[in-house]
């Protein structure tokens, strides 16, 4: 009887070891798969995008303002689209930061728990609205408002696109900023109040700086979403391919170009490769946004090093 228990215990332990190994292997495979997919995407972008530069020089590609993919010979210059993306993203960022961070401060520091527990899930729900729906709302409502407000011929312009993108970025900014503010230790708040600081002073001088890394990350994710968003800008940005710096003019951001043309491009043709090159440019742009965010966070960490 005793032997039996000892054996079964040893058996059980052996089983445990096997299970640990299996789980470890499973998780390792998942990790490898994710990295492999990421590398695969980058490799594909490079393979399909780089041939574009055999016809157009890198310089001409990025600074050229003429995009005639089906002329003979075709011209591929994406400067116009690049500027459109920047203008639309900057507008979205300018609107989303105060709105998003402000809401987060309200929810984390001022709102009663009951309000916070109701409103936050609602805002997060907003993040799940499909971009096509945002596009429709933009078309039906915001274009009209913008057209009337600025007395334009058409409300399909960079500003409208920027506004819609801001609404799509805000939920991300609010949600992550609020998380960051909520994790600021209550000891900091107490210390501030005990020194005779007001609530507002405590929020601005203690809570927000302490949560700054999280808030920065939130903003960067919001910007990332704005840069990459396609459907909404395709619908409301206006789609003009003339070079414009004014947000009140119709625009065509980089994502919209790819979405509009990829189905008509001959696979393996010059236009096809050029569109992939735009994808590559987008990838590099978001990479730099993330890189910049990392730098900000790193400096922050060094400043507050423990």
């Amino acid at each position, binding site marked *: 009887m005793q032997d039996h228990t000892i054996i079964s215990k040893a058996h059980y332990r052996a089983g445990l070891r096997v299970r640990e190994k299996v789980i470890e292997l499973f998780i390792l495979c998942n990790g490898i798969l994710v990295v492999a997919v990421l590398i695969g995407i980058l490799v594909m972008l490079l393979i399909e995008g780089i041939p574009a530069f055999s016809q157009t020089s890198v310089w001409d590609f990025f600074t050229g303002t003429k995009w005639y993919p089906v002329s003979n010979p075709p011209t591929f210059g994406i400067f116009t689209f690049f500027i459109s993306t920047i203008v639309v993203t900057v507008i979205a960022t300018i609107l989303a930061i105060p709105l998003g961070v402000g809401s987060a401060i309200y929810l984390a520091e001022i709102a009663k728990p009951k309000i916070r527990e109701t409103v936050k899930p609602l805002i997060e729900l907003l993040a799940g609205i499909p971009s096509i729906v945002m596009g429709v709302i933009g078309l039906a409502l915001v274009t009209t408002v913008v057209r009337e407000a600025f007395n334009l011929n058409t409300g399909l312009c960079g500003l409208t696109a920027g506004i819609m993108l801001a609404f799509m970025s805000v939920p991300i900014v609010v949600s992550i900023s609020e998380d960051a503010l909520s994790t600021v230790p209550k000891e900091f708040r107490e210390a501030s109040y005990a020194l005779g600081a007001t609530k507002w002073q405590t929020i601005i001088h203690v809570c927000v700086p302490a949560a700054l890394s999280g808030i920065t990350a939130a903003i960067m994710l919001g910007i990332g979403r704005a840069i990459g968003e396609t459907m909404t800008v395709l619908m409301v940005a206006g789609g003009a391919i003339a070079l414009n710096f004014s947000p009140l003019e119709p625009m065509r951001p980089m994502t919209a170009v790819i979405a509009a043309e990829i189905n008509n491009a001959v696979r393996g043709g010059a236009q096809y490769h050029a569109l992939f090159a735009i994808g590559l440019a987008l990838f590099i742009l978001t990479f730099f946004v993330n890189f910049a965010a990392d730098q900000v966070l790193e400096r922050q960490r060094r400043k507050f090093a*423990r």
Partner: protein
Amino acid sequence: MNVNSTATANNKIKMCARSVNVFYGTMQALRDITLDIPDRTITAIIGPSGCGKSTFLRLFNRMNDLIINARVEGDIKLDDMAIYAGSVDVVDLRRRVGMVFQKPNPFPMSIFDNVAYGPQRQGVQKNELPDIVENSLKQAALWDEVKDKLHQSGLSLSGGQQQRLCIARALAVEPEVILMDEPCSALDPIATLKIEDLMRELVKDYTIIIVTHNMQQAARVSDVSAFFWMEPDRAGVLVEYGPTPQMFSRPKDKRTEGYITGRFG
């Protein structure tokens, strides 16, 4: 050396509590506390865990206001001002009654900015800050250790240094009273001794109220002691109050005697 002689030397009352009851929701945390805090003395509040010592301490700068559901009855006065009166500006009260917490909690900013924080919030001019910071750090016996690295993070200091930084930070707003909530419980014995020496130095200019779990600390450092006890319904009551040497040598109450001699608690 008798550090406790000042207790009887002056009898001006700096703060006082009169028939104070505190409730958290329906639970009573403190019952009928009446107590005087003499000016420029160290008053130690001792007693077992959960008897409401910290709750009592936090009445004096109204930190309990931050707790939802907390309700205070009775009077607490700073000099002649009833601090729970509707007309009292809590921000102003907290400038006069500073606080040092159990766990050292410097802000995640530079040593300089930590000390300058309070004065800055009151709108003190920028060019006055270096002097205030230097004086406060000197008062907190930290200046010599940090004068060459004022722009390093306050969090880079050791635990004992951090706590002295927090004391300097509290001193920078020139309070009249300093509340200390178990200020040494997270520190090693050497750092603890430094803080205790500092308290004896500070009491020449400030009124100090300290909550402590450490009986030896209360005996070493305080002039007056108040012994709290938790009643069966979990409400804290004041059992005994008097000059520290007297309470530690001839406690009047059996519970005090049992507690300070280490028989229970």
